[in-house]
């Protein structure tokens, strides 16, 4: 997997919704191979910040640059609360679709690694929430995006799932990627930057 290394600059990012301030003047810089941990109480704006970074929610002011370019959509992969999994398709079909889009060849190995190979022909509506979360996380490994935005990624995951996710993040960081992770539980041993949204 190749990742284009670069630097992410976020400056004075502010977001209002229906006149209410969600967050104000958030600034940080992350170099390649760095992890940023987002913490804060429920409703403090962690999800909104991640969606603003991904370009899914407009910011009120401020700017986001990656490698000194403001066009960012191609660089982010967001794993949010909504997993984007269709009930009527199987994990195999889902991963085949996304791996074809991202031109990733070893998706069957990914299914095995995330312990989904035995359920590959089962419709997603029959999977447990933890298995669905694993499927969503497995897509991270096939995307070639340099910046991962993970919103509460360990919710519904068991110990083995958390360990797989940690390995995936470690590999991504080792290859020069950037990860911004929001979490209530401190499951990361180390991180380079922390933003407290409270």
């Amino acid at each position, binding site marked *: 997997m190749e990742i284009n290394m670069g630097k992410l600059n976020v400056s004075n990012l502010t977001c209002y*919704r229906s006149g209410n301030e969600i967050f104000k003047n958030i600034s940080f810089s992350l170099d390649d191979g760095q992890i940023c941990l987002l913490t804060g109480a429920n409703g403090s704006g962690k999800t909104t910040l991640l969606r603003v970074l*991904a*370009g*899914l*929610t*407009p910011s009120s002011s401020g700017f986001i640059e990656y490698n000194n370019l403001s066009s960012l*959509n*191609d660089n*982010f*992969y*967001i794993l*949010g*609360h*909504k*997993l*984007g*999994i*269709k*009930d*009527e*398709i199987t994990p195999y*079909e889902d991963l085949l*679709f*996304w791996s*074809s*889009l*991202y031109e990733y060849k070893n998706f069957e190995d990914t299914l095995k690694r995330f312990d989904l190979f035995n359920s590959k022909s089962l419709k997603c509506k029959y999977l447990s929430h933890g298995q669905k979360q694993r499927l969503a996380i497995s*897509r991270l490994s096939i*995307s070639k*995006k340099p910046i991962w935005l993970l919103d509460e990624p360990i919710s519904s995951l068991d110990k083995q799932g958390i360990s797989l996710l940690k390995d995936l993040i470690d590999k991504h960081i080792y290859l020069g990627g950037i990860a911004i992770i929001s979490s209530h539980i401190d499951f990361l041993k180390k991180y380079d930057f922390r933003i407290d949204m409270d």
Partner: protein
Amino acid sequence: MKNFKLLFLREIKGSFGLKGSYILSLTFFSISIILLPIGIGPNKGFLSSISPGLIWVSIILTTLLSLNNIFREDFNDGTLDLYKTGPLSIIEICFVKAIVHWVSNFLPLIFITPILSIFLDFPSNILIYLILSLVLGTPSLSFIGILGSSLTLSLKQNNLLIPLIIFPLFIPILIFGSGSISSLIFIGFEDIFIRQILILSGISGLSVALCPFLCSYILDVNYD
């Protein structure tokens, strides 16, 4: 083109799945066409003369049932987030969504129209022209429909809003769609039929060319 094909196959499979709106469209259209002659009465000449209008009005009313679902499910389950941040362009997504809506909602209606036209005493010698008008006119309904669906995406109660926004845009399609076939019934195969069919094709062509771009812009600014 490869990504376009991949998305099309995934979407078409989803549309013809158990939750597909095509079943509702097919049922609503069939019931409308079967009930209309019962309500109007057994005057065969009268029924035959108004049948093009009845078929086109039923088609348009059926369209309104499925428009809400074009982007709604993908928006609710997070798939649209993945599409927007993935390797596909939003224009491609809009284009595929409109084509899949047409294939899954209108193609079954067009196939069943020859059978249902018997209930309306539709002249069988011009049935092929009715099918032609539907094939040329209904793509515009899907492509204009994606505009309504994207405009109301961020609203939770949007069932009333889509018809209000989209209905005026469907009126020219209704006029030229039913008008072309009515002119065949009342005047015969004349220039007026060809002109109306050409206008109908023009509206469809314009919708196919413009609506995906407008829809992608709407999804950019109205997505939260």
